[in-house]
């Protein structure tokens, strides 16, 4: 049963002419041609008709019906004779809120059916109704959360409350200095954009060519951030989410820029605080500097005395200066280690194995396995 045939414009039809309508019914949407002669429907059922021929007889367009000299192809889809009607189902869902056109060529239909279907062109236009917009999407966090950042800050993570539209990120995120001037070419603009699979977290790299000392962009443009100065990351409210709706509001993050960080993080300098035996209190780790949020969540593993991972949940603390792990089950007395993968990074992209930016004569690099850190702690006496 038709639930809706919305925004249909009246097709110019005679009493016995076919009627075209957009129909939403289980299991999906379709375009139906009703009131075709039974002989024609029977002929269509018996004929083997390829996709191109069908599209020549009944073309559905994601726009107005093209004129006679316009070669715009009709959209892909499947055709079927169902009961008393000819039905088109799109290969892809129809675009909501977009005017569509349908062109039925009765002569071609007649040829395909081997019967007389009459002559002339019947056209029809319809607009599938838009879906109800949900709550507006918001920026929920920008990492690092610390206001103070090193001059060679490598990346930002922008978290949003709902999936975003692809291809609009860089146009809607600006780095602005104290005077309100936009810092040009501050970010690495990847045409693919760097999203998580849900498209609710964008990774924004500062242009590595500008951060690495003495490579071309660095020499010509300098670092995008300058120590002793203050910048703002400005996110425009016009950035659209996956449903095409703008953000509820814009977002600003202030960056107070300090001297560059050119030292590798050292796990030996981190302070561990062991939990009590038989408790489900977290084991806590204090970094001595803010760490990359995503990597801090992922790169540390708690192992028991047998080297087996302990199950639980990770939380990264304020300003990404700490990490804690809450076990699923109460701690048993014994020795544990926090196993730190060397790919964990500080805010400047330095990891346990090497510096992001190696200057002349300071080529400090550790083989990856050697750089893996193990931080022991003991539960109970």
């Amino acid at each position, binding site marked *: 049963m038709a639930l809706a045939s919305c925004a249909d414009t009246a097709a110019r039809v005679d009493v016995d002419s076919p009627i075209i309508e957009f129909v939403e019914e289980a299991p999906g949407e379709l375009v139906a041609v009703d009131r075709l002669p039974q002989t024609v429907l029977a002929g269509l059922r018996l004929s083997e008709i390829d996709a191109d021929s069908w599209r020549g007889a009944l073309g559905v367009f*994601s726009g107005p019906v093209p004129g006679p000299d316009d070669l715009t192809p009709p959209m892909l889809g499947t055709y079927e004779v169902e009961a008393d009607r000819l039905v088109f189902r799109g290969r892809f869902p129809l675009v909501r809120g977009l005017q569509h056109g349908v062109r039925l060529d009765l002569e071609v239909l007649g040829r395909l059916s081997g019967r007389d279907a009459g002559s002339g062109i019947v056209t029809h236009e319809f607009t599938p109704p838009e879906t109800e917009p949900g709550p507006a999407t918001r920026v929920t966090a920008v990492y690092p959360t610390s206001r103070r950042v090193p001059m060679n800050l490598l990346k930002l993570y922008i978290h949003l409350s709902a999936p975003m539209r692809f291809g609009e990120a860089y146009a809607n995120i600006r780095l602005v200095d104290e005077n309100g001037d936009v810092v040009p070419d501050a970010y690495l603009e990847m045409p693919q954009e760097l999203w998580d699979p849900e498209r609710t977290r964008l990774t924004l790299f500062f242009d590595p060519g500008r951060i*690495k*000392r003495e*490579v071309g962009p660095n020499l010509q443009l300098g670092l995008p951030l300058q120590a002793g100065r203050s910048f703002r990351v400005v996110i425009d409210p016009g950035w659209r989410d996956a449903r095409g709706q703008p953000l509820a509001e814009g977002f600003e993050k202030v960056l107070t820029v300090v001297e560059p960080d050119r030292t590798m993080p050292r796990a030996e300098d981190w302070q561990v605080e062991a939990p009590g035996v038989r408790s489900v209190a977290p084991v806590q780790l204090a970094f001595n500097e803010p760490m990359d949020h995503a990597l801090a969540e992922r790169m540390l593993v708690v192992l028991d005395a047998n080297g087996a991972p302990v199950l639980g949940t990770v939380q990264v603390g304020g300003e990404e200066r700490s990490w804690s792990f809450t076990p699923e089950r109460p701690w048993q007395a014994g020795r544990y280690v926090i196993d730190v993968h060397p790919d964990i990074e500080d805010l400047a992209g330095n990891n346990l194995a090497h510096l*992001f930016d190696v200057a002349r004569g300071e*080529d400090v690099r550790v083989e990856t396995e050697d750089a893996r850190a193990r931080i022991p702690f003991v539960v109970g006496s």
Partner: protein
Amino acid sequence: MRIRKGTGLAAATALALFLMTGARPDVSMTSTLTLVSPEISSIGAIAFGPENILFVGDSEGAGVFALDVADDGRGSGDAVSMLGVDTNIAALLGTTADEIVINDLAVHPGSQNVYLGVTRGRGEGSVPVLLMVSASGDITEVGLDGMHYSRAEILNAPGPDQTYGRRGSARTFTVTDLAFADGEVLVAGLSNEEFASNFRRIAFPFGDEFGATSLEIYHVSHRQNETHAPIMTFLPTEVDGAPTILAAYTCTPLVAFDMSGLANGGHVFGKTIAELGAGNRPLDIIGYEVAGEQQILISNSRHPLMKVDPGLIPGAARLLEPGETGVGFTAVQESGIRQMDNLNADYIVLLQDRGEGLELRSLRKDAL
């Protein structure tokens, strides 16, 4: 020097290359594609390999697919052109041109059909679509239903993210370019989390459990070890008999890496041979042959098309001092070129934006 990516050469030459890459022509690579009906999350970079095999980089699914496109047509050697290719694709896929993203282009070396990796929609319900444009200008969807394929993981396994206690799979690996050379699929890209490990090599045919091996490439520039910058586009080639990757970086150096004697997980030191200019992003790089001479073309976001004579590369000096620009290039006054590939012996084909929508254009190699 020979050039392997997107060769699109005549059949005899293609066979010769095939022999040189070490593959055994009596063993069908296609027969190793034993799975049916691939489920691909995204179609990013694409490149043809041996036989009818199209490699597809799936950034969202963090994998590389090898697809048997079963395209046995013979190309005509003619040019291909289409104005408003994005508009036509949009009409076919039932949407508007601004909802169409053409991620990459690759020409089937035999049929000379132009394959396009496309995303339909930028918002909710966006889907990857593989399309083919024939010399006559017909666009058809290359259906994945029933297609034979195999797949390899890009992200290293097992990794620290595959243990416990972390939230799901926020990590992705965006494939910026891929190519097939010497029995391996080479994949360049960038993780959305750690900055390291951005070049992968995967032996083909893909094994049952084998994933990508990470390759740390050190790009020696200006007396520094510049590591881990993302490669935007690259060309497997050969310099003085050594397999070499010519890689163009986001921050625009052009770097040659000698791949000979490389161990899995090894470190490779590259030689910066040219700076292509700041504020510019290289978009695509291809090699081609004209009148027995090899040439290299690089398309750019801000600069015109650049033609580099590969004969200059073996003797090129390593750039050491800031301000040096290295191997010279000839500017070809064509801009807005997003993607390109060899079409046939006479033409290269471009996906180009000259201000009036996207078009497919063919340029004669001897006129470049």
